[in-house]
């Protein structure tokens, strides 16, 4: 544990030197001939799409890949060679010199032990401390990671904390022994943007204070711009390019990097200005919700208003983006529109068919609505071939719309329309890639000629480059068929690139709505502003300027949620 604090980027000495790293599982080569360095105090971001080998690389540094992985090459940490792995040497390094935090803090913490117990346990594993001293040190760490009310949280179980709070606990655990290197494997991917911004701030502060290096794994270029000093782009287990963050963003050398960067939806983009605004007049309203309310009842009698007096009307040919953080009620609103949830209050009319709460059945089928799901994989029956899945949807809908054609030829044509080969007709869902599955989901949603499509985070599970092509497809089809659309997303930049109207939700209420360009340019509501401020922009210079401004106002500009 060195006490001196490193400057941001010292010359010379390397903390970690990876040379010619090869990782294979059986005959499957995951990482090929990878070399990179990390200097003390530096943050290196490894970026890549799924399957690029970025996480495997990170895990290999701590020997966490399990017995099936064969790791060759050289991993030098402070001049000490780690390959081939030696259990005692790894145990000495893990937690003491090199620590790791993961994407799902909930999964990384043991659900049956209290937060404090787990943290103190980790501390006592590494340092010879009495239980009282360990508790003292744990409390100190919880304060250091700015966990609110640490004395209370200490005796709570993981399920009682929010995702952001759990990630703080994980970070406290990781820095308990002042490691020299912190590996962060997508630590903010599962968090809301405002929470993400605070976690990134925390990491940056801790790094400045303790002088540790960070290896940051991510797929998000906004996060890269925000936190990295240097970037390593990976693809198919190989290094594509590496360089200082400003250089990589302003002058990417490789075409793959350029492609990735161009695929990032950007608030600065002109996308939403180009959209034709040929909206139907007010008489052509597809969805009309008035004063809709849904209340969920908890086990102990507590109530939660998932939707609270929501009024919204959507016209034919209009794309409305619903944005908000988790728990804002945006998905609930989508499910109500799709007829999957019954309402307690108000009324919903689709194509003039009115349904009113409270009461009525669990599910009310409305022929004019269809849906594209976030989990493309889960939305297809794993036991049915693609063609059969599409045919089933058509057959069911034909009871209400006899004009629908459910012949095999027509289904193949539907596949072609979403850019899929007709051979996929006879495949099972697991044989398709994520992007292909979502295309099938879109084909199915549009096959029944809906007047309203609810798209619930349709691209959030996809890689950026795939996301881009799927979005382009969706937009093209929307303009071709002119259906009304509710596009639910947590990503404001994505909302900006696809919608005519932006609806911002928070805690079951609509806090702001208006033409997309207008809301983004002049957000009227404080929550909308906080949301906009929290999005890391894929531009290091801009991001640095925003950060400086944020510190000057004392961090008060961020949202109210922890």
């Amino acid at each position: 544990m060195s006490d001196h604090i490193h400057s941001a980027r010292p010359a010379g000495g390397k903390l970690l030197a990876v040379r010619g790293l090869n990782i294979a599982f059986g005959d499957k080569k995951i990482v090929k001939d990878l070399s990179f360095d990390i200097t003390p105090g530096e943050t290196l971001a490894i970026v890549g799409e799924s399957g690029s080998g970025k996480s495997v690389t990170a895990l290999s540094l701590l020997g966490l890949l399990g017995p099936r992985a064969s790791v060759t090459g050289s991993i030098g940490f402070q001049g000490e060679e780690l390959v081939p792995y030696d259990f005692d040497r790894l145990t000495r390094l893990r937690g003491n010199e090199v620590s790791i935090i993961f994407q799902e803090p909930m999964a990384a913490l043991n659900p049956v032990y209290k937060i404090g117990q787990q943290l103190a346990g980790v501390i006592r594993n590494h340092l010879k401390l009495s239980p009282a001293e360990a508790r003292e040190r744990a409390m100190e760490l919880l304060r250091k990671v700015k966990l609110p009310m640490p004395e209370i949280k200490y005796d709570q179980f993981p399920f009682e904390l929010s995702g952001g709070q759990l990630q703080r606990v994980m970070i406290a655990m990781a820095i308990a022994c002042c490691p020299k290197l912190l590996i962060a494997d997508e630590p903010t991917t599962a968090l809301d943007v405002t929470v993400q911004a605070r976690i990134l701030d925390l990491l940056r502060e801790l790094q400045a204070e303790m002088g540790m290096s960070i290896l940051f794994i991510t797929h998000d270029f906004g996060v890269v711009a925000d936190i990295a000093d240097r970037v390593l782009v990976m693809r198919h287990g190989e290094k594509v390019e590496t360089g200082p963050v400003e250089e990589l963003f302003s002058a990417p050398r490789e075409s793959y990097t350029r492609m990735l960067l161009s695929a990032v939806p950007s608030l600065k983009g002109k996308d939403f200005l180009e959209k034709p605004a040929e909206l139907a007049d007010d008489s052509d309203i597809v969805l009309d919700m008035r004063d809709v309310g849904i209340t969920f009842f908890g086990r102990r009698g507590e109530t939660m208003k998932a939707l609270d007096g929501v009024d919204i009307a959507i016209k034919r040919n209009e794309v409305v983006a619903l944005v908000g953080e988790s728990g804002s009620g945006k998905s609930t609103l989508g499910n109500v529109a799709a007829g999957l949830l019954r309402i307690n209050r108000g009324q919903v009319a689709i194509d003039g068919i009115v349904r009113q709460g409270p009461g009525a059945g669990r599910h009310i089928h409305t022929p004019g609505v269809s849906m594209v799901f976030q989990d493309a994989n889960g939305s297809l029956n794993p036991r049915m071939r693609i063609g059969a899945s599409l045919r089933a949807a058509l057959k069911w809908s034909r009871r209400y719309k006899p004009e629908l054609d459910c012949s095999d030829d027509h289904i193949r044509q539907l596949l072609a329309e979403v850019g899929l080969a007709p051979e996929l007709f006879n495949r099972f869902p697991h044989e398709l890639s994520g992007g292909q599955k979502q295309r099938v989901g879109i084909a199915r949603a549009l096959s029944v000629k809906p007047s309203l499509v609810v798209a619930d985070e349709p691209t959030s599970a996809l890689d950026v480059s795939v996301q881009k092509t799927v979005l382009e497809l969706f937009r093209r089809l929307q303009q071709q068929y002119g259906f009304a659309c509710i596009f639910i997303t947590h990503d404001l930049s994505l909302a900006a690139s696809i919608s005519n109207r932006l609806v911002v939700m928070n805690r079951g209420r609509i806090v702001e709505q208006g033409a997309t360009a207008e809301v983004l340019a002049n957000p009227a509501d404080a929550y909308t502003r906080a949301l906009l401020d929290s999005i890391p922009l894929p531009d290091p210079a801009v991001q640095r300027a925003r950060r400086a401004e944020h510190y000057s106002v004392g961090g008060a500009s961020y949202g109210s949620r922890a």
Partner: protein
Amino acid sequence: MKRILLPTLAGALVLFAIVGPCITPGDPLAQNIVARFAPVGTPGHLLGTDNFGRDVLARIAAGAQVELFTALASTVIALTLGVLIGVTAAYTRGLTEGVLMRGVDVMLSIPPLILALLVVAALGPSVPTLIGVLALLFTPGFARVAYGQTLSVRSRPFIQAALIFGAPRMSIIRGQILPNIIAPLLAQASLTIASAILVGSGLGFLGLGIRPPLPSWGGMVADGQRYLATHPMLMIVPGLFVVTTILTFSVLGDTLRELWDPRERRGR
């Protein structure tokens, strides 16, 4: 390896039960006091003869027929009833669910062997009674599995998709839910066949299963027990058949589950 061997072995056992009595020489019931206690390998009596001089192979074959038929029939009945109860309960929720699943809990709390003894004692031992008792005993297990699986499948997005496209309830149950819950049920069924044979043999051993002189494996073990010291093969041979059959059907479940899964069938 396992994929081919086990279904083949199970198939061979079923085939043996069907055609065995026709191809094995000798009458399972014909007594021949002169030729009693012939050792295994005697010409004409491949597995020897018992204390009445009856051909052991012929008796095993005849026993296989009764044994496997009882086990299969009771399993199929239990599977059907269990799926009906479990899926209905999970799909309707509310009051129906409560009544059905509490009923299943009550059934599960009855000690199986006691119930079997009670029913057989009341109605007298016969093949239909045995099948009925076994089916009754195994239904709650299937209902529980079907119930749990249906609950978990129901919450998946493809069921929501079906609802949105206006799928009728029966079509969702048959086309969407059943194919996705069948794999664990098949595994359960193969285990059930094994335990049906076990319980059937046990009842036979206690003299409450199939009525002598009709041969049953359990009864043969019981008869052979008396000559354990002098002629151990009389107990070992039927015992081996019981063990092999139970093992085969127990492990068969895994194989069936794998074969049903499109991911396993096609590889990755």
